[in-house]
């Protein structure tokens, strides 16, 4: 039985600090199959892949490659065993040529010197093999993302990979490029290479894959041949039996206009006007880079505003730096919590009290007891799970880190709360909690601006949705239209691509 598989792992567990990322997971891969991994964010797919290529060490469990015990010390080691991974973010050296990239670390040499001519010839040969028309001497920085990805794939395969792992390979490709990628994947399959394919896009999985393994909350749920399953079954396996209501939108009374902007222009957005009322959740939808986040960053004083007017409770305000926005009662949860949200090596307490330390200061000194008490209260209110308030932020799970970011901004007693991707990389449970909190805050009269790339979230949580396309608001959708079915994911998506 075991002989049928090119790769298998059993009982793999992995802990990060106190939290379990993988729990007795198993995974089996046949030669020449395209095997999809499906699961929500934080389900453990990426962790398992990182264990396979040696980026993480498993805490328990065994792996076998072609029936022999296998363990990689690092990705290079994995590559020598014939396992390569193509990461979601491509690792491109912009100054290398295509040939140099493909044969990085495996250059042809004459004695101690490089032999670029021979490397280029070799590269040309593999490029031809994949029918990929790019000169081996082209610099990587001249390529499109899709082309660079092809180079990565060719590199992976050219060192006799038996298994290629692709993590969300289509996330930055358009549909033509995706088709080309699929053609390449099928070609790999014909050559007997196994592909592990991680994607959130169900359509793609049904188009390209043979087998699907489902993960949930760090656990292996099951494996199904594509022919014997359907979308609904997969979704219910992903979500589990207890389907949480993750969009518990409670309608509350919408009051007066709290915050209003008129004719905002800046880098990445033009002529933006909107207003948000007390108790309202105003959703912003649009493709990444369409100007949603850019607008909010400029409003909050992180980027310069070229023109336009801001009004808070009817009075015109000017915000040149974030401190001013905070003083006025505007809070902003940034889209990337690791980059803009938290000081990961500082304690939960310090992170929470950071934006409003002034309020806990007496004379020159921070009132440490009061600080601890108030931060603890806020953390408890948001159900932050942490060993102590002195624990460093990195020791918390993604969901709890995000709650710390929320707690930190709640401490500033905002009137307007801007949430940019508040549930990115957060597990289902925490997601539901954060949504619940948003409703509570709205009920208390806060004006909430919600930016999200997840359409179900925007549709499920917003009283009103503004849709961005190329830096402008091109449409708005009311909650009633969503509830009546007049507007749905398809129609909003169409708007996002500029079709009104």
């Amino acid at each position: 039985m075991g002989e049928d598989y090119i790769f298998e792992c059993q009982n793999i567990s992995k802990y990060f600090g106190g939290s379990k990322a993988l729990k007795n997971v198993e995974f089996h891969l046949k030669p020449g199959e395209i095997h999809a991994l499906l699961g929500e964010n934080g389900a453990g797919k990426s962790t398992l892949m990182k264990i396979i290529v040696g980026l993480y060490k498993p805490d328990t469990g065994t792996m076998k490659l072609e029936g022999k015990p296998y363990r990689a010390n690092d990705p290079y080691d994995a590559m020598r065993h014939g396992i390569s991974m193509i990461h979601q973010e491509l690792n491109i050296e912009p100054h290398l040529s295509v040939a140099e990239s493909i044969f990085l670390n495996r250059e042809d040499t004459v004695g101690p010197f490089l032999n670029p001519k021979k490397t280029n010839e070799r590269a040309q040969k593999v490029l031809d093999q994949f029918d990929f028309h790019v000169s081996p001497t082209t610099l990587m920085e001249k390529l499109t993302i899709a082309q660079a990805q092809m180079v990565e794939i060719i590199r992976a395969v050219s060192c006799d990979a038996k298994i290629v792992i692709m993590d969300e390979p289509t996330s930055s490709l358009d549909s033509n490029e995706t088709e080309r990628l699929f053609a390449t994947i099928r070609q790999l399959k014909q050559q007997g290479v196994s592909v592990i394919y991680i994607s959130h896009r169900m359509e793609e999985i049904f188009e390209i894959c043979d087998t699907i393994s489902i993960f949930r909350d760090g656990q292996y749920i099951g494996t199904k041949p594509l022919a014997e399953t359907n979308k609904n079954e997969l979704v219910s396996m992903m979500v589990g039996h207890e389907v949480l209501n993750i969009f518990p939108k409670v309608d509350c009374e919408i009051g007066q206009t709290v915050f209003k902007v008129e004719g905002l222009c800046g880098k990445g957005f033009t002529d933006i006007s909107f207003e948000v009322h007390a108790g309202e959740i105003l959703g912003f939808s649009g493709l990444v880079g369409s100007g949603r986040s850019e607008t909010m960053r400029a409003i909050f004083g992180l980027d310069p505003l070229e023109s336009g007017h801001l009004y808070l409770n009817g009075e015109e305000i000017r915000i040149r730096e974030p401190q001013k926005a905070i003083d006025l009662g505007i809070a902003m949860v940034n889209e990337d919590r690791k980059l803009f949200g938290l000081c990961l090596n500082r304690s939960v307490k310090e992170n929470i009290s950071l934006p409003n330390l002034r309020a806990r200061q007496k004379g020159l000194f921070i009132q440490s007891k009061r600080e601890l008490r108030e931060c603890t209260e806020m953390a408890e209110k948001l159900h932050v799970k942490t060993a102590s308030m002195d624990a460093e932020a990195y020791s918390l799970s993604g969901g709890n880190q995000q709650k710390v970011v929320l707690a930190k901004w709640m401490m500033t007693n905002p009137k307007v709360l801007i949430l940019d991707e508040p549930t990115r990389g957060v597990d289902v449970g925490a997601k539901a909690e954060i949504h619940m909190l948003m409703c509570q805050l709205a009920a208390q009269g806060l004006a909430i601006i919600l930016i999200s790339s997840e359409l179900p979230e925007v549709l499920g949580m917003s009283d009103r949705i503004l849709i961005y396309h190329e830096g402008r608001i091109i449409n708005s959708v009311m909650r009633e239209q969503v509830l009546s079915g007049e507007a749905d994911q398809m129609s909003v998506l169409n708007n996002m691509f500029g079709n009104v």
Partner: protein
Amino acid sequence: MNQTKMKDRQFLGMTRETFFKKYGIIFILLLMVGIMLVVSPTFRTYNNVLSIMQSVAVNGCLALGMVFVITAGGIDLSIGSQLALTSVVIGCAFAANAPIPVAIIASIAMCTAFGFINGLLVSRLKLFPFVVTLATQLVIRGAAYIISDGKASSITNKSFRTIGMGKVGDVIPVCIFIFLGLAVIAFILLHCTKFGRFVYAVGGNINAAIASGIKVKWVQTFTYAWMGACAGVAGIILTSRINAAQPNIGSGYETDAIAACVIGGTSFAGGISTIPGTIIGIIIIGVIYNGMNLLQVNSYYQMALKGILIILSVVLDNYLNKRRG
């Protein structure tokens, strides 16, 4: 009942676990002292302890400044030159018959000003701290030579010697009190004020600090200004001890200050450090130098050993960090 529990858990304002994580280095110090007590009878003599204290005072003041700069994600290589500048400024002040307080204030102000300039260059022009202070070290050293015309001069004011050589009650050197005073100020500044919290935030994640409304540029600038002030204090003690205004003193002092911070648990990645840890780091360096002298280690070997020691402490720090992660 509840209160005793609090007392049990909280030690110097932290849980016992965090205490060991932060100050575990103290056991290395105790071990070293223990070994020295056994192998060298001279180690425990009053004169020897005195000499350790005097060397710790100068290096210590520098490290107390450096820890702010490194914590905020920077580095200052110009402090050796700042020592020379202090020395020269004091010489000039006394040559002009200025009283001691004026000489002290003038020299500290001068160094603070140069620190401030370092800070502005780093924060406003977004230059690399390493490059900025590598260059300003030449500027400051040059300024010291220009002011003094390249000449060393002895200091005529007799009572100024008290700062570096005097003893309180004929037992404890005055300079150690200056160092301790500065340490208390540094502790309060870093651990009990908003400024200190901002220093940690800027070093921990500068983008998050900006997004939290912190005026990051000012925080960075003030860490360098504070470094300058500390260098001024160190320079005063040093000048008093050598009893001369010399434009060529102080080279290599930045290494010891940086090493003390690193040994004391300051992370070069920024955002991690403590004042008590830094003080322990300083004392460890003092004991190592002293120990090597007492054991008659050749001074060339001493230098090499010092380097090896810094690397070992960083490796240890890395290891501890990895285990935590």
